[in-house]
């Protein structure tokens, strides 16, 4: 099944630190948001494989906007 890692704050996408095909663990940083002149980590809530990277650098984000799409197993 698919799960989406979403933006947790409004701001700019500073970078996505995973690539398609990467294995990620729950709690692992997958992206960074720039807001309030600081960098805020966006962590995966799931174990999974990166299916696609949705956000790119300088994208304006709102809370809930998709950043990374994961494939997780049914227990993920």
């Amino acid at each position: 099944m698919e799960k989406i890692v979403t933006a947790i704050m409004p701001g700019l996408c500073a970078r996505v630190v995973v690539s398609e095909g990467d294995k990620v663990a729950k709690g692992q940083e997958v992206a960074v948001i720039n807001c309030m002149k600081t960098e805020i980590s966006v962590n995966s809530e799931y174990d999974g494989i990166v299916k696609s990277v949705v956000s790119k650098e300088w994208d304006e984000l709102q809370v809930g906007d998709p950043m990374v799409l994961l494939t997780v197993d049914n227990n993920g």
Partner: protein
Amino acid sequence: MLKVINGGIETLVEDWPGRLGYLSKGMSASGAMDNVSLGLANILVGNKPGEAGIEITGGFFEAEFTEDHVIAVSGTDMQPKLNDISIPLFESIQVNSGDKIQFSHIGKVGFRSYLAVAGGIDVPVYLGSKSTCVFGSYGGFEGRVLKAGDEVKIGEFSVDSDKVVGNKIKPDVVPEYQNEIVLRAMPGPNTSPDYVTEEGMELLFSRTSKIQHTSNRSAYRMEELPDSFYARSDGGVGGSHPSNIVDHAYAIRGTLNICGNTPILLIADGPTLGGYICPIHVINADLWKVGQGAPGRDYFKFELVTQEEAVSARHTQNDILSDRSLL
């Protein structure tokens, strides 16, 4: 004691009115970004409205209470839960030793939540305030944001808990948060005709401007103004740009500083002096609205008011921050 499990995006100990009297030493007042929400939370638990509480910006704060306490949560709705069960905002509740409080992300409106605990937050008073100046690294809890593992002391509370548990704020007093935030402001000190054109001032008081993602507790930045805003072609002895001026003290909190063409609202942890013009000043009674503006999402609009209206608004706010707001 409050044992921090997750410090969240930016969680600080703040009181109100903050650290007053040290602008000449280069120290800003700091203090709660939304003093109304902090004040109402404190009133709910029987504290003085300006007592130190926990300011949660952006969300994701989690902590465990190691003793029984009476608490209240106010401000924007970050879906607060106690032991995974939702708790109401603007209402005082009993918590017991071992209970865990958890905040999620911000919603569609508002940016900051406040957690007040009966007895207040017991951090050292530094230069007259418990507030954190996060950019100066002083005050509050070790001069910094809270992080996992921190143990925050709670002050002594002399009132019987039963007398404050279940307190609620009157519905008509509970603040309403909006995406387009109207800030009442007065002109000055660097305004038209000397520094800004009449048209420039009209633009400032008529346009709606997005809060830039670079905004924080020091300053809230807005969209650039056009060159036609300025009455001068340069800053004279102050510098080459018409926003330049010979360095002067900034009337923080609330002055609108224009740096280059960017309007920058100087607030809690803002700079105390500098060399840019300040054409308007947001009234004290509306500073709380700034604290609920989310960078990258919300908008500011300035509304011209008189000094008399500003004083009246402050009296009204003082009236709200009292037991009279309890249901």
